[in-house]
């Protein structure tokens, strides 16, 4: 079967599983969700009304088909707490979270690629050791602790940043960037560690291959071998790693946003969980899962297109 068709089928299967899981998860809530939301003092009418609103008074298959149909149209129903469509609430918060994630991604690549190259070039030497220790620490630091430390140092001691004041892009792009910079750094640190380790390994693997020996024996300088041949091949797998980790970046931003009190997905989701606003929680989680699946799909395809060796297979 054609690769693209097969990949598309597995994508659909995964999406179906994700949609089913989010549906099933909220059907195994112990007891009556309407009663849980309203509390024990609610009257029977109130409960019946909320049950109708949540759609849980209807047969399960009917509910499931509705959920599938809604998910396909990105219509996740109404938030119980805010009485607004879930999609609109998510849309309002989306710019904050996505710009935080993209900024963190930019920082990751800008820092990790030079560090990875430096580590591979100085393999076994002091610089390599230092970078290796740095990546181990980067992987172990909880991003929210990193965030607190950044607030402490740059916000409270040095006073370079005013902490916990988010400025929207439309108002003042410079201040918006400034309000997102510290959280983006906190978010980027573990990602940088992952990419550096990965890039170092692939670079060293590539340097042992025949084409490198050929290039060297025809008299090319080390750095031109590295930058013209090796790096190009080593960056491909790095794209995959970055893509796969985009989900972790989004999930990580849920926590880091809370540290910096940014009005993004994180606070909306945490509030929704606290309020037992099931439609909102369900919609947000499904949407994030959709984004993760879509990004992985695109990365996988672009990888195939960029690398002629794989394309031919």
């Amino acid at each position, binding site marked *: 079967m054609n690769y693209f068709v097969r990949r598309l089928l597995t994508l659909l299967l995964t999406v179906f599983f994700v949609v089913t899981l989010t549906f099933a998860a909220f059907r195994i809530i112990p007891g009556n969700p309407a009663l849980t939301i309203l509390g024990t003092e609610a009257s029977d009418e109130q409960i019946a009304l909320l049950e109708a609103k949540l759609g849980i008074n209807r047969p399960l298959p009917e509910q499931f088909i509705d959920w599938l149909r809604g998910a396909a149209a990105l219509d996740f129903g109404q938030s119980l707490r805010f009485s607004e469509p879930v999609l609109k609430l998510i849309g309002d918060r989306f710019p904050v979270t996505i710009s935080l994630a993209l900024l963190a991604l930019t920082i990751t690549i800008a820092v990790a690629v030079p560090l990875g190259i430096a580590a591979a070039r100085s393999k076994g030497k002091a610089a390599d050791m230092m970078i290796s220790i740095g990546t181990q620490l980067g992987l*172990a*630091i*909880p991003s*929210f*602790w990193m965030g607190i430390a950044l607030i*402490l140092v740059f916000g409270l001691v040095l006073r370079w940043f005013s902490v916990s004041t988010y400025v929207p892009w439309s108002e003042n792009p410079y201040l918006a960037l400034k309000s997102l910079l510290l959280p983006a750094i906190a978010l980027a640190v573990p990602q940088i560690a992952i990419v550096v380790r990965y890039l170092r390994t692939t670079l060293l693997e590539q340097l042992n291959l025949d084409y490198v020996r050929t290039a060297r024996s025809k008299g090319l300088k080390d750095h031109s071998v590295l930058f013209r041949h090796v790096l190009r091949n080593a960056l491909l797998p790095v794209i995959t790693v970055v893509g796969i980790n985009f989900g972790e970046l989004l*999930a990580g931003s849920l*926590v880091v946003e809370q540290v910096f009190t940014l009005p993004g997905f994180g606070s909306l989701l945490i509030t929704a969980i606290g309020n037992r606003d099931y439609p909102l929680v369900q919609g947000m989680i499904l949407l994030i899962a959709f984004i993760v699946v879509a990004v992985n799909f695109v990365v996988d395809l672009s990888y195939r297109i960029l690398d002629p060796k794989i394309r031919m297979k």
Partner: protein
Amino acid sequence: MNKKASFSLLLGIAFVALLLAVMLTSLFYTPYDANEMNIAERLQAPSAKHWLGTDNFGRDVLSRIMVGAQTAFLVGLLSAVIGLVFGFIIGTAAGYTGKWLDELLMRGIDGLLAFPGILLALLLVSIFKPSMSQTILAIGVLSIPSFARVVRSGVLQQKEAEYVKAAKGLGAGHLHLIFKQILPNMISPILTTAALSFSAAILIEAALSYLGLGVQPPDPSWGRMLNEAQSFIRKAPWFTLAPGLFIMVTVLGFNLLSDGIRDLRDTRQ
């Protein structure tokens, strides 16, 4: 390579042993009662009396950190056990039988992986009430995929090996092949994954508890301590230091342990 491998392993063992010692000590000795409040001595800086200072209720931070290690280890261990048991069953079923069951189970695993780390945990805690057992269950579920994948690829590799074919030829049953022939050869990758899952569990538990959706009071948790500390960051900046440092050292220890075990296997082969 060999030297570096043993270095990570030794350092990892040292860190983990140190924390294990702290945790075990806390079972029968802490400098103060971890939950004893003393408003007169709230938010004190580290001193000879309170090595790591006191928190916003005047509780001894060192004692709370020590008892917090119990939470971290309990969550790490039990969630790894859940991940291992279910991951092993799914991975073996997929790798050993192959065909449509393999495809179905692995797509299910892909589906689980679409919920990045903490998101799956948030999904589960939003359904049930946040608590220690809930946190363990949630983190256990999200560590299933990595175990399932490692076990599956191990089984796929080993089931074609000569010695397995030989045992099969001698009339060994499926269970004998899986547990007596294949499993002993997968111990090292499983241990590597277990150590990684342990450190991931500690990070996620800390994040969940930081958000107030993980371990609930009065059970102490390093993550929740950080949340409390952040509220008093201006008055007592040093209070944010110890819980984060302990999370980091624990995660570092288990990561190094995992790397060390992997490198040990690589050098042997």
